[in-house]
């Protein structure tokens, strides 16, 4: 198992280097001269040239990429063109705020999707099933930025239950978390139902019932535990959407997380912040996916057996 974990960690390295290269190349194509953005308006041509040399802009992209990776290994993602602050510092300041939203979104998604998916599967082809699936389909189809605005209008501007933006204690993460969580819940409900249907007619459940195990235990212990693998898989892939979706939700609620940092940086053409924000978020998503892969082994003893071999 340790060897497998090590192997997976080593496999992460080329992917992360590739991601940095991809974002680095794409952002390098952005128009505009960074030296002009940083320098004072009355800077002379000599001063601009010196600034370009300091930033490494007079070197080729390959040189700058290698330098970027080297700096990144030392925790340096460059400095913001606007504030002059190290991008890594700003990112790490904002990351806990986004993680709070992500945890909140996952919580909302789980408490809605798991019961709804199980009920839909157990009552397949009944009104409960159809109603759950219609709700899930509407949830999948609803853009998060619209849902966020509707929630803000009702619960913040009309009822005044929650703040409409910023970070004012626990209340400020409720609406953004629900916005992100409802979309996730819709996807997870469909997956939970489908996954439960796959196992509900299995022989081992028939055996459990024949042995006199009560139906609640059959569903929750025997069926659900085996249905968890596809649910975890989809959950893993959706986590990427949660962190990506933070860009929109944080913008709507003026929430100072990493998503808003990237959006603000784009508005200011602050390339180091955009590159650093996207690269760091991608690394986190990749690591979370690895953890989820490893969770399979815990949930499914058959997979654990393969690792041991």
């Amino acid at each position, binding site marked *: 198992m340790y060897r497998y974990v090590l192997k997976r960690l080593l496999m992460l390295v080329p992917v992360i280097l590739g991601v940095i290269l991809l974002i680095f190349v*794409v952002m390098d194509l952005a128009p505009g001269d960074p030296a002009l953005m940083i320098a004072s308006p009355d800077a002379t041509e000599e001063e601009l040239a010196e600034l370009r040399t300091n930033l490494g802009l007079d070197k080729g992209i390959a040189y700058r990429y290698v330098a970027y990776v080297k700096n990144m290994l030392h925790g340096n993602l460059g400095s913001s063109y606007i504030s002059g602050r190290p991008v890594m510092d700003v990112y790490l300041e904002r990351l806990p705020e986004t993680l709070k939203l992500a945890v909140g979104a996952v919580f909302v998604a789980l408490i809605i999707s798991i019961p709804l998916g199980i009920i839909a599967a157990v009552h397949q082809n009944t009104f409960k099933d159809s109603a759950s699936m219609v709700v899930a389909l509407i949830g999948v189809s609803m853009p998060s930025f619209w849902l966020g605005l509707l929630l803000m209008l009702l619960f913040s501007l009309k009822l005044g239950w929650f703040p409409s933006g910023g970070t004012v204690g626990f209340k400020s993460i409720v609406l953004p978390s629900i916005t992100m969580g409802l979309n996730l819940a819709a996807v997870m409900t469909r997956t939970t139902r489908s996954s439960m249907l796959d196992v509900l007619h299995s022989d081992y459940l028939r055996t459990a019932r024949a042995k006199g195990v009560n139906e609640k235990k059959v569903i929750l212990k025997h069926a659900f535990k085996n249905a968890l693998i596809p649910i975890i898989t989809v959950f893993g892939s959706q986590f990427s959407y949660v962190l990506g979706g933070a860009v929109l939700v944080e913008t709507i609620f003026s929430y100072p997380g990493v998503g808003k940092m990237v959006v603000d940086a784009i508005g200011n053409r602050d390339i180091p912040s955009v590159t650093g924000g996207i690269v760091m978020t991608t690394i986190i998503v990749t690591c979370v996916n690895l953890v989820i892969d490893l969770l399979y082994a815990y949930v499914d003893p058959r997979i654990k057996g393969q690792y041991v071999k």
Partner: protein
Amino acid sequence: MATRERVSKKYAKRSTMGEIWHRLKKNKGAMIGLTLVLLIIAIALISSFAFDYDTQVINQNLVNRFQAPSAEHLFGTDDLGRDIMARVLYGARYSLMVGIVAVLIAIIIGVTLGCIAGYVGGPISEIIMRITDIFCSVPTILLAIAIVSAFGVSLTNLMVAVGITSAPQFVRIARASIMTVRNEEYVEAAKAIGMPNWKIVVVHMLPNCISPLIVQATQRVASAIISASSLSFLGLGVPQPAPEWGSMLSSGRNFIRDYSYMTFFPGLAIMLTVLAFNLLGDGVRDAIDPKLKR
């Protein structure tokens, strides 16, 4: 003999398509989705005749600003006095165009690379798949943001960005599909008579494994529409004053407290369009492969 073969082939093809259509027709959700999609296409086509773009869709009329929904302006008017209904209906073309063109771009890139990876195999396949892994690792919306912010805000760049971010799924599916038929006898036969590789893939292999790609394409249109409107919402999509739903929502957001209808109708339009494509996509998936129905 040849005529008989042609006839039987034609009959067999019709029969498969007929069977899929028959299954699709029986699916109420798919039919609702199809009806909605056709309705939205009709709206997109008719709106250019029904409304004059310059005077009714983008022209400012400050005297009429912030009119609540009424018989004269069914969806009300926005902060610049423009009729929201005219803009929402006219905006259908942008969402449809971005959704469909982006998926076509994704198909062209994804299927080409996927076919090469699946057919050639070996190190070339490994390289293509590792690059695909890299693209898949970056959250879709962030990659699209990076592409649009690098190349500039325009309708074309929006479609390219959404297309590129959707392509990796097609690479994976096309590769897997091609690999399932790679060792079929008809492929060996085509190779034996000296047919060029590209022709073997395009003429013989792809038609035999195209179902998963059709399903993916139908379902992908919905997510492409959401991605595109998300980018427009962030100011990285179709530039103003074009009536794109995402950018309409974005500008309505500033007035949500007093004029919530400015955000309600464009949002509803996005949701209904995405819902329609999701319903149709699920229906097509179930009709093509009933084993997946759940």
